[in-house]
């Protein structure tokens, strides 16, 4: 049968593959053909794997013998900071020139067992630092919905690959919104799971107290299928939470039948939020209300510090994590007259502008004279914000905000103003600081220059309550 990529979901594809309506090879070929047509312009993929067809043939065997999972034969796009053994992985940086992954990330291993087909690796902001995929060493990615606009970032390539029907599923990483913001900008569903539920073994670290791997899907159900496939305790990641501990923390209580959604009014009144975004958000909430949800105004008195806290802690951790790129063990290696010069040249030439900026910023806030004023203060505010959220979650099941303060902006609009770019993360960073799960679902679109530009609605739930997010997400979209 002909394959209609536009309306295809993981669940539908799984059923068609099981019935033999089309084969895993035919499915992958349909996507590869689309990539061939669109990728030149969109630049979602940095590399399309030459063994995709071979992988699909293997997946077809799993499907025929019924030994694969839900994802058997499903074409997946991988962010370029997640390792697949024997494939290049660069985090879109020149410093990893020529680097070939020496092992599989745990999420990759899990998807291989399911029988997923990796089509290629996707573009991103270098080392996941950015919100537009303009900070890539390998050119910008364009938003497939309006090619004059950014796809968001840092997982912009994964979002664009899915939005241009260049894959049926995609994985990204989210440190401050890097899955949810591009998902919103490209009209997709994106999930940042609870900190510690998905193993980060094989993910290139940016800020280790914030990073999480998560899925992109066209529907909430697809995101849920992917999440279930990649979640679970992993002894190879010491921050991964043992399953019984997650269960215990989650508690046994079912979410109440009539769920309450909290709206942080004070945050929504702050300047810098697009009027159309606010209108769209209010319409979304009104719809949920008419669907039977209780809506409650809540107060998160310290949430307006979240962005500042994030932009202290994140660069501090990144400056430490990125010290491993030294030109000695892998990747780019530039030579000077002394060992010091070897490092400085390799890192000076290998790292892009935003990465250099954040490493220096991290070194600054960690230096002895400023440590207390910035880093320690940020941590104590982080704890305060966590406490505020925990208090609010005693009264509501979920908290809703817009995913982003504006729709997708124009290419180049913010690339010379790092602070303006950072402000786009205002609604997404709190979930990372607290470690709670957050989901974005498409919430309609706004008119911009005669085009319909998508917006997202974000839901946040207590730790380990992805189930609540999926439930609310399905009923709102």
């Amino acid at each position: 049968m002909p394959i209609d990529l536009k309306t295809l979901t993981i669940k539908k594809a799984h059923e068609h593959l099981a019935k033999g309506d089309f084969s895993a090879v035919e499915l992958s070929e349909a996507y590869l053909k689309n990539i061939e047509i669109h990728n030149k312009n969109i630049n979602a993929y940095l590399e399309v794997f030459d063994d995709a067809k071979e992988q699909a043939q293997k997946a077809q065997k799993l499907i025929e013998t019924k030994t694969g999972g839900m994802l058997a034969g499903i074409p997946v796009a991988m962010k370029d900071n997640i390792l697949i053994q024997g494939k290049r992985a660069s985090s879109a940086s020149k410093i990893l020139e020529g680097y070939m992954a020496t092992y599989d990330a745990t999420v990759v291993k899990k998807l291989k067992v399911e029988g997923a087909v990796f089509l290629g690796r996707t573009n991103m902001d270098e080392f996941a630092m950015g919100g537009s995929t303009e900070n890539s060493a390998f050119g910008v990615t364009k938003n497939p919905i309006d090619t004059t606009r950014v796809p968001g970032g840092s997982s912009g390539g994964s979002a664009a690959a899915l939005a241009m029907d260049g894959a049926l599923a995609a994985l990204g990483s989210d440190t401050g919104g890097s899955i949810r913001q591009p998902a919103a900008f490209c009209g997709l569903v994106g999930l940042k799971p609870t900190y510690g539920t998905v193993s980060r073994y094989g993910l290139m670290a940016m800020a280790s107290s914030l990073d999480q791997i998560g899925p992109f899907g066209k529907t909430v159900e697809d995101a849920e299928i992917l999440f279930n496939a990649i979640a679970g305790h992993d002894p190879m990641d010491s921050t991964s939470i043992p399953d019984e501990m997650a269960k215990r923390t989650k508690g046994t209580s079912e979410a109440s039948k009539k769920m309450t959604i909290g709206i942080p009014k004070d945050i929504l009144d702050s300047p810098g939020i697009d009027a159309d975004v606010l209108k769209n958000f209010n319409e979304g909430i009104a719809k949920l209300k008419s669907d039977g949800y209780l809506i409650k105004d809540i107060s998160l008195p310290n949430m307006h510090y979240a962005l500042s806290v994030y932009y202290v802690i994140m660069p501090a951790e990144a400056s430490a994590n990125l010290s491993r790129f030294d030109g000695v063990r892998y990747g780019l290696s530039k030579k000077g007259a002394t060992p010091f010069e070897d490092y400085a040249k390799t890192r000076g030439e290998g790292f892009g502008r935003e990465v250099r900026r954040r490493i220096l910023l991290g070194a600054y806030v960690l230096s002895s004279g400023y440590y207390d004023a910035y880093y320690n203060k940020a941590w104590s505010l982080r704890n305060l914000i966590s406490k505020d959220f925990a208090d609010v979650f005693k009264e509501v099941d979920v908290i809703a905000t817009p995913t982003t303060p504006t729709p997708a902006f124009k290419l180049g609009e913010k690339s010379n103003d790092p602070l303006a770019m950072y402000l786009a993360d205002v609604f997404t960073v709190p979930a990372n600081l607290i470690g709670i799960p957050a989901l974005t679902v498409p919430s309609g679109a706004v008119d911009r220059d005669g085009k319909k530009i998508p917006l997202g609605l974000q839901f946040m739930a207590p730790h380990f309550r992805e189930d609540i997010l999926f439930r609310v997400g399905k009923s709102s979209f």
Partner: protein
Amino acid sequence: MIEKKDIEKLAHLSRIEVSEEEKDVLRKDMESILDYVSQIKEAVSQVLPKEAGELRNVMREDNNPHEKGLYTKEIMDEVPDTENGYVKVKQIL
């Protein structure tokens, strides 16, 4: 105020070579970012005690070592400069 010599010091500590033009750009960028994040200094300084979460051992038992040399080739293949199976670096002392 961030000065040029601060940028030079940070670049030195971070082992990153920075060009003269970029020093000025970095100085301005850092100043505007630090100016923004400095709002945390004005926050009510209610310093909460540092709390560890639930304590658990995240280390594995030191047993069942893998066979020697199992991963050596793949890892050494990534090293830019080698000699006789060693990672080659400049003389340090």
